[in-house]
């Protein structure tokens, strides 16, 4: 099966800052891909480049086998895009927004579909009246209207830019469950960005982590959880610095403890720990959130210890 999204060495600068740094990745057709990163990591910029809203400085991306900068209307009709913040025309009522969006998909020279009944069902499910003004809707309701509009053309690819941003916990959970329920069609690909780890863990088959514009992780979600380990080394006296080696993601020194996050912990790392004189080694599994934090936080300066602690 071909890849729904192919990104090759995509790069973007804003001024002197490189916000997306030669990112390459492939999203197989039918995959739910969670794209993670902290605020300002470059997730939205990369998604906007994918959608042709932002021009890349170099590199290229293809969506459903067409260059992202030259998407034909027919191909764009097969791609749903939920931009960050769910922008809709606030002066319109929900019904007007539906009719406005629908007009682009019906009676077109290219093959496009629009499921009126689906929209009605989704709006009924969320108890959103078609006469309600968009500006009077809550963030969550606006997200739900956006979702209904995005899915009505039965897209093959969904690109969601932080769809749960600004939603409270209950609405976020409900929104995600709707997405999971609604996108379950064979062959439909979903690419969504988020900084909510729990959301990603619940839905994504595969994840990518962007750190300062660089794609640091691109693998199946389960694999990521099994391969990343937290290793705690204990020393007599102040812990030394762990030397740079393959798989070392981050290290944090707290008094006589050295907390490491290592990908693929093995014999090489054990040898280094022994050579440093660790008196105790503890290897722990990490959940996605802890692993993500370790990945995106990077090395931190040693934590200070309180004077009374030293005195004990």
């Amino acid at each position, binding site marked *: 099966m071909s890849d729904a999204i192919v990104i090759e060495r995509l790069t973007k600068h804003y001024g002197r800052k490189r916000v997306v740094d030669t990112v390459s990745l492939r999203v197989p057709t039918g995959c739910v891909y969670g794209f993670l990163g902290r605020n300002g990591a470059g997730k939205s910029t990369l998604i906007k480049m994918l959608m042709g809203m932002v*021009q890349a400085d170099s590199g290229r991306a293809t969506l459903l086998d067409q260059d992202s900068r030259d998407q034909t209307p027919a191909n764009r009709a097969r791609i749903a895009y939920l931009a960050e913040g769910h922008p809709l025309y606030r002066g319109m009522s929900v019904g007007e927004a539906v009719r406005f969006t629908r007009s682009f998909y019906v009676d077109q020279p290219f093959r496009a579909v629009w499921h009126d009944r689906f929209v009605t069902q989704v709006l009924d499910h969320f108890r959103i009246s078609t006469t309600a003004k968009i500006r009077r809707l809550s963030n969550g309701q606006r997200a739900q209207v956006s979702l209904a509009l995005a899915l009505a053309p039965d897209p093959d690819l969904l690109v969601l830019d932080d769809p749960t941003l600004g939603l409270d916990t209950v609405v976020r959970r409900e929104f995600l469950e709707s997405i999971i329920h609604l996108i379950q069609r064979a062959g439909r690909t979903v690419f969504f960005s988020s900084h909510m780890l729990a959301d990603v863990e619940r839905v994504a088959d595969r994840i990518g982590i962007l750190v300062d514009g660089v794609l640091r992780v691109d693998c199946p979600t389960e694999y990521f959880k099994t391969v990343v380990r937290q290793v705690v080394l204990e020393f007599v006296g102040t812990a030394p610095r762990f030397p740079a080696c393959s798989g070392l993601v981050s290290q944090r020194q707290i008094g006589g403890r050295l907390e490491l996050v290592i990908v693929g912990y093995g014999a090489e790392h054990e040898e280094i720990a022994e050579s440093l004189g660790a008196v105790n080694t503890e290897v722990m599994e990490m959940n996605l959130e802890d692993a993500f934090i370790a990945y995106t936080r990077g090395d931190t300066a040693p934590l200070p210890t309180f004077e009374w602690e030293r005195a004990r």
Partner: protein
Amino acid sequence: MNLAIARKELKEMLPLIVLAALVQLWLLFGTLGLLPEWLGNFNTGYIIPFLDPFFDGDVVMAMALVGGALAIALGLGQTLWELFRGTFPFLLHRPLSRTKIFATKLLVGAGVWLALTVLPMAIYALWAATPGTHASPFAWWMTASAWQLCLNVLLVYLAAFLCGLRPARWYVSRLLPGVFVGSLLLILQIAQFVFAPLGAAVTLTILLVVCAGYVMAILCVAESRDYS
């Protein structure tokens, strides 16, 4: 032209359009002597339509100024309003080429210009050309400067649209298309009155060429700019 986008644009700009239409109607009907005194009747019986502002009661210039103000508000509104609300990604992701989307916006602006600047001017000219409506001579060549003013308004609209659309680091550089149009109109005006007078055909040709250039620039910027 996409009717859904055209309807949306008109609806969003409706308060401005209605306001400008009311002012234009007031100016037109007042000049034609169709309004009661208390609402403003500018027809003193001594006006010579399209002769010059002094004899004309300034109505042509007033209509052009109202059209110009509407043009600026419309041009900026159609672009900056979308940018500030962040709705460009929603609109531009619809299955329609970017050129068609922006061409529709421009056609709506051109339609409003025709209806609220050219049409009142044309009605005024037709009234002036009708025998028995006023005690002064009239020839169609006298209306040339009014049509030039109409084209100026169109150019102002396109400049405002481009100012709103093109990305810029700070306000002054954002306003460059407007500054260029302002300077051009000033030079044309000076050239007509002070230096060797330019023929109306030459002036209109220059204005039409610049208008075409601005339309091309708008479509080019729309295609290439970042919507972040």
